[in-house]
């Protein structure tokens, strides 16, 4: 178009954030120290199962945020997207965390080495499971070709290695383009984005099966991998929004990220984080509810007893109904205050969702009751451990590490893909 575009400030003061390096390092060290201390103390707590499940939940929370950002990059390249070039660098900084996030899996390797993996995964000790529930142990024994400790660890290594390589590939090529300006990087990323999407889908699905679904090894849901993937999108897209808004409030990227880009982040968050999540969560629930087979419904039963009843209701309203009504309007996605509120809310909803997925335990004696009401009455005092200190200590530790590392990464690689061939298109992007 021949009309004059407003002058865009591409000086280092606007697109370099060297000042973030020091606080970033500080937050990262603080977070790491908290996690080390928490782990040493966690090994001595009486309820190691609770500690390990909380570790899994907090670690998967930050991992899912980074995976969501990685998915954003993959989709950006697969669709040859133009609009998202200016918000790609924050997404890359978040996805780059996958290069160290594998450290969070080491406690499980440690427990495996100690032979105590069954604190969290009941299938790791079939003899103990048999004493608690013979029927469940028989079911799980049939899955032992897949659910055994050695294969489990090999798979985990494959997942974290795949994410490591994908994050390095997508971030590395983009940063390399900043210095040499070659279009070949863009071409290469676009070419490999397709296979990367397949790898991403397979690894996140199976990671969800391994790390969350197998906490209740007799239970199964074929769409569980998709459920976790949607959770990744929820956390990832919302966190991208938060990082962009925060960078601009610190005085960076002025005039580069505009209302138009924010509206699109809001749309993605609305589509994936709110509507698609509800679609998947409801589909999973309805099929199991309609089928009404005991080994499937037990999983939802565990989320309806005691305090979990209220947690489920809060999740329904907090992850779908309220954000749906809030984000459906155009102005809430375009005004920064409301978008920031929605992003923070949805990150919290993703944490809450993982808490809901990972923490509840299916009572082993549910077969002994005749009616639903009897089980509800028996377990009316079931605690959700919401106020358990592990919930908050580990969350703070991992969030500090995620935020600190993202800040460090942003400071070292700049805030804008300055040589991207579609940068001009992105700077001029407007919604119709």
């Amino acid at each position: 178009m021949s009309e004059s575009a407003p002058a865009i400030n591409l000086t280092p003061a606007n697109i370099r954030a060297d000042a973030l390096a020091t606080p970033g390092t500080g937050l990262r060290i603080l977070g790491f120290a908290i996690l080390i201390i928490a782990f040493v103390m966690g090994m001595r707590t009486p309820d190691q199962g609770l500690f390990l499940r909380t570790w899994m939940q907090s670690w998967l929370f930050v991992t899912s945020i980074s995976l969501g950002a990685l998915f954003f990059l993959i989709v950006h390249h697969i669709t040859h997207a133009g609009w998202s070039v200016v918000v790609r660098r924050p997404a890359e900084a978040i996805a780059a965390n996958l290069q160290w996030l594998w450290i969070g899996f080491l406690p499980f390797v440690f427990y495996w080495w100690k032979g105590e993996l069954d604190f969290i995964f009941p299938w790791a000790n079939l003899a103990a499971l048999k004493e608690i529930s013979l029927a469940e142990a028989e079911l799980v024994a049939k899955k032992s070709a897949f659910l055994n400790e050695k294969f489990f660890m090999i798979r985990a290594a494959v997942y974290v290695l795949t994410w490591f390589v994908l994050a390095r590939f997508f971030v590395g090529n983009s940063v390399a383009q900043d210095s040499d300006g070659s279009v070949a990087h863009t071409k290469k990323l676009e070419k490999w984005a397709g296979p990367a999407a397949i790898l991403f889908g397979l690894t996140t699905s199976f990671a969800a099966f391994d790390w969350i679904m197998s906490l209740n090894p007799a239970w199964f849901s074929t769409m569980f991998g998709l459920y976790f993937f949607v959770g990744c999108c929820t956390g990832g897209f919302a966190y991208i929004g938060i990082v962009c808004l925060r960078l601009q409030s610190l005085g960076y990227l002025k005039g580069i990220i505009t209302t138009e880009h924010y509206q699109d982040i809001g749309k993605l968050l609305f589509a994936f984080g709110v509507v698609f999540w509800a679609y998947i969560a409801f589909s999973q629930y309805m099929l199991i509810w309609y089928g009404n087979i005991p080994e499937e419904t037990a999983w939802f039963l565990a989320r309806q007893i005691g305090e979990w009843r209220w947690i489920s209701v809060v999740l329904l309203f907090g992850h779908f109904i309220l954000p749906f009504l809030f984000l459906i309007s155009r102005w809430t996605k375009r005004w920064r205050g409301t978008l920031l509120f929605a992003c923070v809310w949805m990150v919290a909803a993703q944490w809450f969702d993982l808490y809901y997925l990972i923490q509840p335990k299916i009572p082993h004696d549910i077969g002994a009751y005749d009616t639903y009401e009897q089980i509800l009455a028996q377990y009316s005092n079931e605690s959700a451990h919401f106020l358990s200190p592990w919930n908050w200590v580990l969350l703070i530790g991992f969030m500090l590490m995620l935020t600190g590392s993202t800040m460090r990464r942003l400071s070292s690689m700049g805030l804008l893909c300055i040589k991207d061939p579609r940068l001009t298109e992105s700077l001029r992007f407007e919604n119709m």
Partner: protein
Amino acid sequence: MTTLSPITAPVIQGNQIPRKRLYGIMAEFHDPATLMAAADKVRMAGFRWWDCHTPFPVHGLDQAMGIKRTILPVLVFGAGMTGTMIGFCLQAFTNAASFSIWALVWVTGYPFLISGKPLISLPAFIPVMFELTILLSALSAVGIMFLFNGLPRWNHPLLANKRFLRVTDDRFFIVIESRDPRFFASRTEQFLKDLGAKAVEMVEA
């Protein structure tokens, strides 16, 4: 034939050709920037019955023309919610009602227990409610859009104009209709020329 507009187009040749009604004045521009500036001026001059025609969407033209946001989304939301309610009532009535209603013929509910579920079980109803929400939203979005735009219409005076053909290629047009209260042929023609139009032409209805 009586003419309703105060102005008639100049008669081209021969007195056997009936005088035609004037549809409006069309101004041709060669680039979107001039068009935008012109649209801004036309809006400020207080015209109401006018439009811009471009080969591609021009960003910012809506603001330059002063087009207000449509209330279409609100209506579509209402239609969607209506679909949700129809979906629920349809299933609740057919699956749980033991009374009859008159809908062209007398119909009655047929309470039937399916896999031990309550007669009104919301989870089982949601897929149909969801689909009807989508159906009514989509149909009403298209239908109301047609209504607001005065569609369908079989012809338009501008389509008979030779010069206007290039609107699908590389020309940009502003057309002020003769029914606008501020329209006065000679003055409006001069006004459009002053805005940088490369050509200004009368368009017959």
